[in-house]
């Protein structure tokens, strides 16, 4: 399999007429793990949602290609079938649809008609991944995210990631609301995905998650764009100094951009 590439160039995104992402550029390749960090309200989640094709967000400028194809021209489901995955901060609850039925439908959507995954193979894979993520068996027969705790929802996002095996995954604040044990499990799932055919963009507010998933590159996002990039040491510095130190260094005034919930 070829090494996947997600290339974002000078992306601008608005919601309800207000520009949130203002010229964001980044290239993510298979085998790489990037972390985008930043204070609340700087457009991190907006970026993630816009890349997936969330209906509320409007792309007002820039270019995104996925393995050379124009990502922004694709429907949401086409982006997913091309190999993009977004672990969402606020996954929907779908009543009456079991986790297992949903996962099988999603896997088969990628495999295409006539090439459906054999039921036994599906069950085996599901069991294996659920075990790795320390998820109870009855999980498979519960309705999709309905009545799930915050931690269960996050774990379910990672279960989907592992079942669907995308080429590039974006994890939108996958660490929010997780205790340290759950965080370790989620990290274990993501680390198990590591390979030259898999690239990952981790969006997080805190450095904590990066103790468990070692990023290759760390980028700081403020005011809708990347203001500084570096290695893992950048995350450690932010942990020690907070964002204010960096703001001062870069001469950035506080802005009033409000993070939108997806």
């Amino acid at each position, binding site marked *: 399999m070829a090494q996947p590439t997600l290339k974002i160039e000078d992306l601008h995104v608005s919601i309800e007429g207000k520009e949130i992402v203002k010229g964001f550029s980044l290239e993510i390749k298979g085998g790489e793990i990037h972390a985008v960090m930043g204070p609340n309200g700087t457009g991190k989640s907006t970026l993630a949602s816009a890349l997936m094709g969330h*209906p509320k967000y409007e792309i007002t400028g820039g270019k995104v290609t996925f393995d050379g194809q124009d990502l922004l021209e694709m429907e*949401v*489901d086409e982006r997913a079938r091309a190999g993009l995955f977004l672990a969402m901060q606020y*996954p929907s609850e779908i*009543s*009456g*649809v079991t986790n297992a039925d949903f996962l099988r439908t*999603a896997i088969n959507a*990628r495999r295409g008609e006539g090439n459906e995954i054999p039921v036994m193979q599906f069950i085996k894979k599901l069991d294996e991944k659920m075990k790795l993520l320390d998820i109870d068996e009855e999980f498979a027969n519960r*309705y999709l995210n309905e009545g799930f705790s915050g931690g269960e929802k996050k774990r379910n996002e990672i279960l989907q990631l592992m079942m669907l095996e995308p080429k590039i995954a974006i994890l939108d604040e996958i660490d929010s609301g997780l205790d340290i044990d759950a965080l370790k499990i989620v990290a274990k799932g993501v680390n198990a995905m590591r390979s030259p055919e898999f690239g990952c963009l981790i969006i997080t507010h805190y450095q904590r998650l990066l103790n468990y998933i070692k990023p290759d590159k760390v980028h700081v996002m403020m005011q809708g764009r990347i203001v500084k990039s570096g290695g893992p040491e950048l995350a450690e510095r932010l942990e020690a100094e907070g964002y204010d130190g960096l703001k001062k260094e870069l001469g950035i005034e506080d802005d009033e951009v409000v993070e939108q919930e997806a």
Partner: protein
Amino acid sequence: MATETKGLHYDASYIEKFSSSRGEPAWFTEMRKQALALAEELPLPQPEKTRIIGWNFTEFEHELESKAVDSLNDLPEYIHRLIGKEEQAGNLLLIHNGRLAYQSLSDDLKSKGVIFTDLETALREHGDLVKKYYFAKAAKLDANKLTALNAALVNSGLFLYVPKNVEIEVPLQTVFWQDHPDAGLINHVIVVADDNSSITYVENYLSTEHEGSQVANIITEVYVGDNATVRFGGVDQFTKDVTTYINRRSYVGANGRLEWALGQMNDGNTLSETFTSLVGDGGVTDMKAVSIGHGEQRQNFENRIHHFGRNTESDMLIHGVQLDKAQSIFNAITKIEHGASKSDGEQTQRVLMLSEGARGDANPILLIDENDVIAGHAASVGRIDPIHLYYLMSRGISRKDAERLIVHGFLNPVVSQLPIEGVKDQLTEVIEGKVK
């Protein structure tokens, strides 16, 4: 076919002849004749917000050819599948064009005194017992033109009786199968669970002729004795050319429990009433019904629960999907009578609109004549949440498949409750067929 419902084509002498050809008891023949006179006089039911003027309730073939089935393997595949596993087929009635075509009841249930047979046979063999429940406490013969017409012309039916203290684990199933293009199914179902008994009953209505002018006029009476439990599952699946009047009514005794799980999947115009009367103290009903309207279909669903006894509880969940240019009215009425203190009545109606041209109305009605009660209602008519679609699509599922998943989930409360796998699968398939 639009036809005025004025003159009926039947007179007293026809009724007498028909009744005697079936060897019915005198009281039954007499009731038919009285009902015929009433059917000429009484008005049609007047459903809220649905015009039924012009619906065909009276033009049909009354006497149809029917044939017995020796082996279930001789049945068409779509019927065979419904029946499911062999152990379930142990307790099965197949009614073909109104007449008994196949019957089985396990020796165990026979020895316990369970009666499970067609109405015609029941009238001959257990006439007095039938008389006790036929148009008795649950249904009224003179409610309107269609109830009277049902009594006058009944040509099909079922009688299920479970004696006191008999608890039955396995489901009993009836399949009503029509395959005549102008069939008139005038059907009367009686399900009786005497005190301290329990039963699971599942019925399937199925018509398989598409070109004609058919009528289904169905009255069901369910009697739940003191401390008895009835789980009633039904899947209605009449074709487009069938005009359906279906009136399911029940009478629940003290500490009795009645669970409805209805999949109302007709393709033709349908007037449906489901009525539960919680008469004894401590009676409980849980009612779930789902439906899909499509094409140019007109449907009216009136679901009604009356609390008479103290400490009675009801929970109603109605989910409907509207496609194409379908129009459906959902009226849910929870009535708590004076004296029914400490009762609790809850109702939820949700209508999911999948097309611009469809119409759906959900009208929640609470009528409370007692102070010391709890009652609540929720009703909504809306479209699929675009964020839900986005979530499913973000996993690679196409918009169409995502919608289908959401619709299946929306109708799942009834599907998951049906006790026979074959019926469950069939309902899922019907839903699939309508949504595709």
